[in-house]
């Protein structure tokens, strides 16, 4: 029986639409996976010495202090991205399998999930370094086992957390508050949790507690899942009462308003687009790596622009590059309705511009690191609006991956990211402004660099209509291919 389940699983994996894509993509995916594994492993192995050198403290203690936040972050990531594989269960229900078996199998399947395995690449190297440094093996291994149990506890919490948004957001709020309190040193929850984690290291018998937690969460998840194994319960999509929205205040945008209203609903009402927008907010903080001097290689002056492009371009890069795939599920409607491509694209362009301006305003906290830093951000924002917004929309014409709005799967790493044409288009997106800045910076100074980049942005803005003519033409010639591709649902 298990063998049967496993073959089903294997087939669903190798025959999935995304896996059948071209070889280049598979190789690139492989490299990407290896890259992440390598990064995590190196971090795991190196963090011991980094902590020791930088903080002059016992690395294990430091890790134990952080561990609680690490686990919470993990849970949040899981909530946003890891899905229970309920869809595959439906066809199994009427077959002669016991329900318990189906549930056990589904739960065990999550055990092998990427979200669990990835942690091993950090904690195992870290533990190996502990052993090399002469920590007692039994204790170090007990500590590692505890971490594993807690990670899996998270895995099972996610099974039932997935269903209840309200609980999730309350937990998130409480934890965020505690995190802030800890950061500002008012209350420190790690004072309570760190000794608990340390206790397992000092007395491996305590390992029984995380093991029990993990086990009981498995049982709870099992019961929860099993009780909902009906088409109208856990296996059905949740339905909330919804209300029509007017949004007529957007009518001032004229003929664009039709699409703007729609796009705002699109973002608000679909899980995938909401996640994307949340992710784009995270980009705002990317600059901290550069401007706080945390990482030495990023100290070069050119990197300021690089950081600025990402700080202000989060929405542009994460939402913009998927235009028009956001509308993939009803693209035939859009193509047969009384719609002008220009209006349609213009609306997306406005969304990007508004989001870029908003992030630039939010990013004003970078003023803390000096006017120079914020200037880099503003200049990059101008470039993003003037040039990158066009390029992203242009690249979109070649993007032919349908998006399933209601699911978060593949929110990271759609294969289209490796589309050769979109890859080529990243050159003007990132390298050109860096080059322009470098040209200015090394001939006269930062000011000329900023002027160059901003000028490019303004020029792009001036020629917007011309560029839109070209983009509209590209969209028209690509129309049939796009329609065909969007039909291939995953």
């Amino acid at each position, binding site marked *: 029986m298990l063998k049967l389940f496993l073959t089903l699983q294997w087939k669903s994996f190798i025959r999935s639409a995304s896996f059948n894509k071209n070889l280049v993509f598979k190789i690139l995916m492989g490299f990407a996976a290896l890259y992440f594994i390598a990064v995590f492993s190196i971090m795991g192995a190196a963090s011991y010495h980094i902590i020791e050198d930088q903080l002059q403290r016992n690395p294990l203690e430091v890790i134990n202090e952080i561990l609680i936040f690490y686990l919470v972050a993990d849970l949040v990531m899981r909530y946003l991205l890891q899905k229970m594989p309920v869809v595959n269960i439906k066809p199994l229900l009427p077959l002669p399998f016991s329900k318990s078996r189906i549930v056990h199998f589904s739960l065990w399947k999550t055990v092998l999930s990427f979200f669990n395995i990835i942690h091993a690449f950090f904690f195992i190297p870290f533990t190996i370094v502990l052993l090399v440094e002469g920590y007692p093996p039994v204790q170090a291994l007990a500590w590692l086992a505890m971490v594993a149990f807690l990670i899996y506890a998270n895995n099972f919490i996610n099974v039932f957390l997935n269903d209840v948004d309200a609980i999730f957001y309350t937990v998130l709020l409480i934890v965020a508050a505690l995190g802030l309190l800890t950061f500002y040193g008012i209350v420190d929850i790690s004072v309570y949790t760190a000794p608990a984690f340390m206790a397992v290291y000092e007395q491996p018998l305590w390992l029984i507690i995380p093991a029990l937690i993990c086990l009981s969460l498995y049982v709870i998840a099992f019961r929860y899942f099993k009780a909902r194994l009906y088409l109208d319960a856990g296996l059905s*999509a949740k*339905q909330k*009462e*919804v*209300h*029509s*929205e007017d949004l007529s205040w957007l009518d001032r945008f004229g003929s664009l308003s*039709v699409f703007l*209203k*729609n796009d705002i*609903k*699109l973002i608000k*009402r*679909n899980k995938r687009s909401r996640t994307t927008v949340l992710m784009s907010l995270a980009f705002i903080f990317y600059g901290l790596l550069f401007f706080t001097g945390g990482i030495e290689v990023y100290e070069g002056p050119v990197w300021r622009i690089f950081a600025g492009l990402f700080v202000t371009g989060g929405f542009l890069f994460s939402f913009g590059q998927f235009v028009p795939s956001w509308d993939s*599920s*009803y*693209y*035939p*409607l859009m*193509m*047969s*309705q*009384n*719609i002008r491509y220009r209006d349609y694209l213009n609306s997306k362009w406005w969304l990007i511009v508004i989001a870029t301006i908003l992030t630039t305003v939010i990013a004003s906290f970078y003023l803390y690191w000096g006017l120079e830093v914020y200037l880099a951000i503003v200049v990059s924002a101008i470039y993003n609006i003037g040039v990158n917004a066009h390029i992203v929309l242009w690249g979109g014409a070649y993007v032919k991956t349908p998006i399933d*709005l*209601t699911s978060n799967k593949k929110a990271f790493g759609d294969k289209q990211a490796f589309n050769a044409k979109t890859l080529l288009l990243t050159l003007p997106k990132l390298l050109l402004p860096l080059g322009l800045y470098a040209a200015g910076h090394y001939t006269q100074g930062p000011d000329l660099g900023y002027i160059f980049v901003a000028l490019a942005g303004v020029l792009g803005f001036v020629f917007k209509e011309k560029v839109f003519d070209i983009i509209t033409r590209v969209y028209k010639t690509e129309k*049939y291919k796009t*329609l*065909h591709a*969007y*039909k291939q649902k995953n």
Partner: protein
Amino acid sequence: MIEIKGLSKSYKQKKVLDISSLEIPKGQSFGLVGNNGAGKTTLFSLLLDLIQPTTGQVLNNDVPVQSSESWKSFTSAFIDESFLIGYLTPEEYFYFIGELRNQNKADVDRLLSGFEDFFNGEILGVKKYLRDLSKGNQKKVGIVATLIGSPEVIILDEPFANLDPTTQIRLKKILKTLQEERETTVLISSHDLMHVTEVCERIVVLEKGEIVKDIKTNPQTLRELETFFSGEILNVEA
């Protein structure tokens, strides 16, 4: 109203549609029948410029569909769920289509008020997104949306499928009214010979992409079609 000249579509040398000429005058209610794979949806997709023809062209009110886009303002269609926007409520969807066809909210509301029967209380004010409606109710929304803005050409692919009997009868009534007004050219495809003979004044049978019958509907038509389709099966068996 619609003129098809030498239209064909092939996939890898396999012809799926081949129509040398077909003319549909204004105001005609036109029915398209044929077995699976006969090319009905292919023909409709070509009329809407959703796929490119291998040869030939389609003129919609003298507008060449493949090169101009001005036919879009007087043509509407409902082929499948990909003509619905899943995350909108039915009202929002109607208003959205209305705005695209230059109809304000009041216009749309006036039109919708005529379809309360047809909606049977399951569409307006149900506080659900379209993606959460049943297949039949989604279809009702799609069909009514094609009527917004008094288009001159309406294309409906399998409008009767998935509808409950009451709604089927009501839909037939709607289509007959359109036929009597003689303003709108309605193109319908269907597997249901009875429905299609009831609402269409002309019926074209497609087989393997070619027109094999072109009938002006009369009392014998249903019989004729039934003989044709059952005869086909007999031939295969023989």
